[in-house]
């Protein structure tokens, strides 16, 4: 009899082709112009789940991109249930950002990577579990019940999924939740993420004169909004790199010595830093290591600024307004609501009387997440990696946000295991995003092993702590 691992192996080419078809759909959730393509991706996925034998539902919520739900409960009530979360939406991408090939024409290159927007974030990563389930169903057997909840708004706030989890938690009940939307430094050292930063984003607009003015006729008499914006942004940080917003760090948990040791296990020195970033020298809160700054410290970043004319040539104007997009990354136990109030209040206090300043929250914030590393489900995951990946994973705190993780943790009470199959060098959100095909297949094997192993764990009651 063919095993599920054999099946995955003999179908590997087909699995890649299917992923490529999926990646071709530009499901950019942050830009309403792409709404039809977001829906197209949802429908594609729905059909794929049905094809492999799952029953499906397209969950519609007014004003939101649909959520794709699929389940197979054939293992029976006494068996374990695994909930897989992923997202089928992607970040914006255009050739002009520096792509070498069209971001929505996936291409397998000789380096063993598949290049496309969404390749690693997150279509390629969650697709490993779809293929693992298909392999188990097609070969020997699927020993657990499975549920997939794949959303279409992760890149634009995840408001719908958050609401759905809170309102329909019962439908998603499970024993463990698996999420693959994170990354590792190199293929031989897999990583399980046990902490994520939360986040909240803002848009700040500085408004001056009624329209752009001739800088000769009016320059020097009116507070230039581009300059005023710069003056405000400058005051958001202290000279030592810490955020200047009053009370910003009040709820931040300080690291224990044990945690600092665990974080230090990840290989990530200044050479890696320089290679990954290309920036001259590190920056930030000096009393924390680079990994601690990312995993255990909150930030306030300027993700975009626009004012006046910045095209080719020059335009001698005093711009009438200036806009900045601001992102705060939060750590346990900060809450987006609290930080929202503090940031808005602080900026309003900084605003000079010579211009108008408007600050608004851009989308619902996300709570940070922190998951204990000593629970049985984590042990199963370690074994699955050892058998499926061929290496023992280490724990790492991630700097990014997956808004759903804290909801699944707090609302459903599930242990969330972040089995990331990406590489830090995958350029997620940037140009030339890619995904290692070797890791795609290792991910499928690891997922198969996990489902087989978790099925043998003693009952929940016995393991509950």
């Amino acid at each position, binding site marked *: 009899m063919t095993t599920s691992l054999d099946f995955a192996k003999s179908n590997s080419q087909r699995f890649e082709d299917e992923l490529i078809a999926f990646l071709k759909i530009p499901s950019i959730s942050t830009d309403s112009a792409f709404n039809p393509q977001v829906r197209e991706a949802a429908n594609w996925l729905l059909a794929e789940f049905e094809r492999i034998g799952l029953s499906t539902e397209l969950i519609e919520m007014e004003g939101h991109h649909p959520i794709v739900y699929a389940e197979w409960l054939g293992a029976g009530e006494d068996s374990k249930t695994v909930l897989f979360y992923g997202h089928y939406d992607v970040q914006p991408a255009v050739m002009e950002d520096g792509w070498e090939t069209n971001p929505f024409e996936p291409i397998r290159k000789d380096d063993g990577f598949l290049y496309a927007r969404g390749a690693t974030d997150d279509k390629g990563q969650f697709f490993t579990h779809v293929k693992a389930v298909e392999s188990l169903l097609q070969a020997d057997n699927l020993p657990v019940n499975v549920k997939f909840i794949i959303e279409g708004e992760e890149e634009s706030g995840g408001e719908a999924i958050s609401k759905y989890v809170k309102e329909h938690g019962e439908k998603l009940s499970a024993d463990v939740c698996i999420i693959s939307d994170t990354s590792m430094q190199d293929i031989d050292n897999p990583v399980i993420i046990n902490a994520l930063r939360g986040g909240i984003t803002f848009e700040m607009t500085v408004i001056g004169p009624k329209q752009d003015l001739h800088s000769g006729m009016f320059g*020097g008499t009116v507070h230039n909004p581009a300059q005023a914006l710069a003056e405000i942004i400058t005051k958001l940080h202290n000279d030592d790199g810490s955020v200047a917003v009053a009370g910003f760090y009040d709820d931040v948990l300080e690291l224990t010595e044990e945690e600092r040791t665990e974080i230090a296990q990840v290989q990530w020195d200044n050479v890696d830093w320089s290679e990954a970033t290309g920036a001259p020298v590190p920056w930030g809160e000096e009393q924390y290591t680079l990994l601690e700054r990312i995993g255990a410290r909150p930030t306030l970043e300027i993700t975009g600024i626009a*004012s*006046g004319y910045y095209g080719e040539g020059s335009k001698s104007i005093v711009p009438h307004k200036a806009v900045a997009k601001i992102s705060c990354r939060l750590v346990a136990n900060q809450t987006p609501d609290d930080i929202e109030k503090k940031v808005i209040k602080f900026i309003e206090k900084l605003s000079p009387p010579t211009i108008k300043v408007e600050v608004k929250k851009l989308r619902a914030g996300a709570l940070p997440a922190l998951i204990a590393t000593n629970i049985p489900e984590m042990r199963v995951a370690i074994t699955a990696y050892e058998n499926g990946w061929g290496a023992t994973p280490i724990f790492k705190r991630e700097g990014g946000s997956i808004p759903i993780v804290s909801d699944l943790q707090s609302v459903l009470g599930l242990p969330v295991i972040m089995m990331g199959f990406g590489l830090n060098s995958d350029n997620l959100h940037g140009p030339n995003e890619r995904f290692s095909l070797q890791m795609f297949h290792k991910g499928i094997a690891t997922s198969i092993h996990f489902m087989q192993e978790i099925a043998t764990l003693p009952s929940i009651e016995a393991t509950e702590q």
Partner: protein
Amino acid sequence: MTTPQNYLDDNMPKFITQLKEWVAIPSISTDPERKTQVRQAAEWLAADMISMGLENVEIMPTDGHPVVYADWLHAGDDKPTILVYGHYDVQPAVIEDGWDNDPFSPIERDGVLYGRGATDDKGQVMIQMKAAEALLKTGSCPLNLKYLIEGEEEIGSPNLAKFVEQHQDKLSADICLISDTGVVSKEQPSLTYSLRGLMTMTLVVSGPKRDLHSGGFGGMIHNPAQAITEIIAQLHHPDGRVSVPHFYDDVLDLSTEERETLALSNMTDEAWQGVMGNLPDWGEDGFSRIEKIGARPTLEINGIASGYAGEGFKTVLPAKATAKISARLVANQDPNKIFAQVRDYIMEIAPDTVHVEVLEEHHGFPALTPLDHPAVQAAVRAYEANFPNSPLLMRGGGSIPVVPEIQRILDLPVVLLGFGLPDSQAHGPNESFHLDQYESGIRTVITYLQEVSTI
């Protein structure tokens, strides 16, 4: 015999139609993709020059956009020669900037023409052309005329100085006349005797080699968008003064007399609110609005861009940030020196956590014309004859880079006979020109040419 004034009365509708035709050509010199349209605007002008009776009309090549030249030299050697300078290129404009109509489909509404270039400078070049047409067509042109109309004023006239130098004999004249400045109002003409210079630069701050995920890397890299604001915020003192060391060293102080003259033309609160809304004044303490604009240098941020600022949100840590910076300079300041000062200061305050580059763009010197020159006094009389009030004597805040160049190379006085109105929105959306002002302008230039022919 038809007088030039009669000719004007009969032909005003035609003059308006012609102006609309010319404004409709998007001669945006800052945009390399508009090269054909820039050329088209030059050809339109050359054709009009020929039809009005000017001679030796030529579209003369430069390393950039061409110069349109024409002359009429039949008044006799004993009569003065006037060199008229203007420009047929315009600032960029797209309807998304807030225009009520397509900037290159000019429309007339309540006696006002809306379109890019209506005031700056096509409308004002046409004032010069149509005044000459009225004189030539009625056989009453009292002096010799030369025209130098360029297509690169909005990009800082990079090729004009060389052109003027190469054609010194051809362009030699007694007075240079330019209509590219403004007046206080339709009732209150004004004569600009000083212009600010201009120095523009681009500041580029780069950090990571590409945009990074703000979650994956945020907090351990100096964000270039943040770093650029830190640099920009250090360019001014909190009181509005430019903080670049020695920036003000060469600025000439205003005399009490000149301050009194300028006070007559200070921008009123009403005019201020018309443009600024309810914003309070900003800038150097101890100087009036007109003094800040005309007699004090500035350092302005014309634009900044970094990361993603479109609809929605992109969680990037931007790889770089760019700012367009310009300085307006006053008499006695040298743009080369100011560029070096600003660059050196920026490099000095630049943190070592990012790469900082300052790129030089273009330089124009400030200019000052003696108020007691007969050519200037003739301008005062020309305004007085065609407007209800005597002109105010003013300092302009803008730059016409070629003015100091022409002064230097051809060694002649430059008279700025401007007609733009404060609400004309030059460089902004809904640029306009009042058509009655267009007509008054033509009448004033006719009078001026008649007045100046006797000196």
